């Protein structure tokens, strides 16, 4: 697979690889997406909008530059948003591979950071010199305004062009709680939603705070995905119950949706609406309780996203899918 190099997540000639329950593999144009569903199926998407979670600034004690990448929140409450976990880099920018980024200045609790119009204090270290909990010193409205004005979408060296917010918000993006875009959502546009509807396929959403996908540090990457907060609305739970009763499939649009639904199911069955904090990983030993099918971007073997796919298909099928992706020139994250 080739690395993606363009910021636009919605190329008109995009492809999709369909792997069915028997392991049969088809390479298809993405515009046939809706045709892969049967009437009575339910597609569940993550409607989290993505924050401009990369904030450049200065470590005030040393005067040295740094980049803070917001990485997590324990709650989705609008007023409870001053404290974030964050990954911190030293001087540099996204065009340098994260593996080669300079370390941050030596950080310790109580340090102050100037991040554009925002001030933050470092509350504690989270078991790694790059991973911290920080708290913004302003009202919630002022913090959102500061993030909106100064923040940039988190991005990586393989995409040189600076991303804008419209590059990282899917068509259904609603509440800004994700730290990186849940990428599978880019398969959706309003024509696809219309086609699903015309075909008798249900569509619902949940909101899941998709976290950062890579830090460039092996020890930190081994801790991914971090805990991710989510909100499961009542109409989505109702639609899942009705789809199940009618014999339809529950299709998760993206790994974040699978993680949230399976976490909610692990807490309580029958499923209940409400908020939760997904702490688990999905993998080959996961017994799926809700999700029948997953729509996913392509991910390299060994990543947590790829591990998640092992809950849905055998290693042999995934290996053949990987070969097909390679053969057809798919791009990976």
């Amino acid at each position: 697979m080739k690395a993606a190099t363009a910021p636009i997540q919605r190329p008109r000639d995009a492809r999709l690889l369909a792997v069915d329950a028997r392991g049969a593999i088809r390479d298809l144009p993405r515009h046939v997406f809706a045709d892969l569903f049967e009437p009575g199926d339910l597609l569940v998407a993550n409607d989290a909008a993505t924050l401009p979670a990369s904030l450049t600034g200065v470590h005030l004690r040393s005067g040295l530059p740094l980049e803070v990448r917001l990485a997590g929140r324990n709650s989705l409450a609008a007023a409870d948003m001053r404290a974030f976990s964050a990954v911190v880099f030293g001087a540099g920018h996204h065009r340098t591979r994260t593996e080669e980024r300079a370390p941050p200045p030596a950080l310790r609790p109580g340090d102050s950071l100037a991040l554009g119009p925002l001030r933050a204090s470092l509350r504690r270290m989270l078991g790694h010199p790059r991973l911290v909990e920080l708290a913004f010193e302003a009202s919630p409205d002022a913090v959102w305004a500061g993030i909106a004005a100064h923040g940039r979408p988190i991005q990586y060296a393989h995409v040189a062009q600076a991303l804008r917010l419209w590059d990282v918000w899917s068509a259904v993006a609603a509440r800004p709680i994700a730290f990186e875009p849940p990428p599978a959502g880019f398969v959706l546009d309003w024509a696809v939603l219309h086609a699903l509807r015309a075909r008798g396929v249900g569509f619902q959403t949940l909101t899941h705070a998709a976290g950062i996908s890579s830090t460039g540090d092996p020890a930190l990457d081994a801790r991914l995905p971090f805990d991710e907060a989510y909100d499961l609305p009542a109409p989505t739970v109702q639609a899942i119950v009705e789809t199940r009763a009618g014999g339809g499939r529950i299709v998760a649009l993206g790994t974040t949706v699978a993680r949230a639904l399976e976490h909610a199911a692990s807490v309580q069955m029958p499923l209940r609406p409400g908020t939760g904090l997904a702490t688990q990983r999905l993998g080959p030993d996961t017994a799926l309780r809700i999700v029948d099918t997953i729509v996913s971007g392509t991910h390299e073997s060994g990543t947590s996203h790829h591990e998640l796919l092992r809950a849905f298909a055998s290693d042999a099928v995934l290996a053949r899918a990987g070969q097909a992706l390679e053969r057809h020139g798919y791009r990976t994250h």
Partner: protein
Amino acid sequence: MKHTPLDSPALRVAVTGGTAGLGLALVEALHARGAQLAFVARDAVRVAAIARGLAGCHGIAADVARKDDAHRIALQVTAALGGLDVLVNNASSLGPVPLRALADTDCEDLEEALDTNLLGPFRLTKALLGALAASARAGRASGRRAVVVNITSDAAVTPYAGWSAYGASKAALAHMSRIWDEELREHGVRMVALDPGDMGTPLYALAVPDTDPATLKRPRGSALEILAAIEAAIRAEEVGP
């Protein structure tokens, strides 16, 4: 998630151009009715002053005419309100003042009017469409829609000489509203274009400086009519097929 007749504290509304004229009257009327509110305007000092006077109201300093501001506004609105049920695209530009004939209007002046009156509402609605559709999905069981109101003008219908950039851009906004309404109806989002009438506002005073304000509608009266129209659009019975 809570559901919302207009007088419920849970209705989440955003208003652009919220610090003067009709926009301010709408913000005050919605606040009095208990809506959760965010409003947008360019002057940060005035935004902060009005937000301070309306408890729980979120003021956002931004310019709807700027492409870069659309998603920043959407981010702050949905972050503050936890979603969005109603968007009122009210911010308007007259174009060149004193008003002048189309033939004497510079291209740049027409572009500026289009940026505020057409592209601004288009971009902001597009950036907030995910939140509005989420609101509609949540309200579907109770027959409640999400609503976008675009404030237009009789100058969008009648070709008054001199109301050139304004009239043309508002006509485009009115027609865009009709197209969008057709497209989004199945998703439970209604798009309504409303003409509030000739009001005694700073914008009208700029356009027609010698008008006696006593002969014009008061913005508060128009605001209450718009609230009634929003309520009707939210409660309309058929939501999608």
